């Protein structure tokens, strides 16, 4: 009579290590990423060395190089964008309005926007810039 020796059990892979790595990645992406709505078209902000850190929140108006408008990531017409911003301003008068214009956008499309927001009673309008590569 031969008794078969049971095959040695393979040690279970330590799943704890996997959890550690995944958790680390999770925290990394939470810290490093911004959750703002991105524009549905290409927007490369101008390079600026004197910009300051931008707080989150507020309303973002993106402008493409051709002058297309997007409000918080949704393409809108000028009139609709103004109405939406006016509504937000009514609810929250000190809301931050960010103008995220492509670096090749003509100023005739940008400056009148700021003037209109000022006329609506906006308190804070900022231009989005990006620091030059390799540090400011």
């Amino acid at each position: 009579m031969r008794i078969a020796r049971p095959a040695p059990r393979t040690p279970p892979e330590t799943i704890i290590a996997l959890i550690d790595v995944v958790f680390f990645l999770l925290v990394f992406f939470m810290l490093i990423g911004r959750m703002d709505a991105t524009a549905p078209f290409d927007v490369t902000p101008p390079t600026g060395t004197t910009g300051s850190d931008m707080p989150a929140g507020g309303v973002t108006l993106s402008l493409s190089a051709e002058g297309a408008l997007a409000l918080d990531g949704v393409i809108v017409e000028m009139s609709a964008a103004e109405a939406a911003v006016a509504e937000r301003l009514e609810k929250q008068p000190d809301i931050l309005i960010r103008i995220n214009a492509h670096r090749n956008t003509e100023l005739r499309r940008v400056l009148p926007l700021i003037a209109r927001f000022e006329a609506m009673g906006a308190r804070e309008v900022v231009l989005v810039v990006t620091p030059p590569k390799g540090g400011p």
Partner: protein
Amino acid sequence: MSGDLSLRRPKPPRALISLVPMIDVMLILLVFFMVTSTYLNLDMIPALAQRDTPAPTQAASNTPAEVLLIRLGADGQPVLRGQAFENAALAELLHARLSDTPGLQVIILPTGSARMQALVSLMDLVTQSGVREMRVVRLEAAE
């Protein structure tokens, strides 16, 4: 046979809390953050800041400080009193004027067809020169 021999049934092993649902949730969160985040490093330049207190220039409007009007051409070239300036020359000029009049005010009048990058570069240059008062104006007809 007396009751000397008693066989104990071994205790069933304690069930571990299953880690699989936790890993599922964490992976979903991880993918969510990877997909939704953008990695552009963005800064801001104030374009309009209305404060409750009146701006100091309004209070001191009786004694106007020296004002420098810089026009920005469609090619992105700053023009001062009809003369086009390179960036380095303009910075030097601003430094010289600032040492004479520290309250120098700079007004930038860009052409409507100038690019956004040109305006931001000029604003950078003026700010880095140490000018405290800078305004961007536009002509209504430039729309």
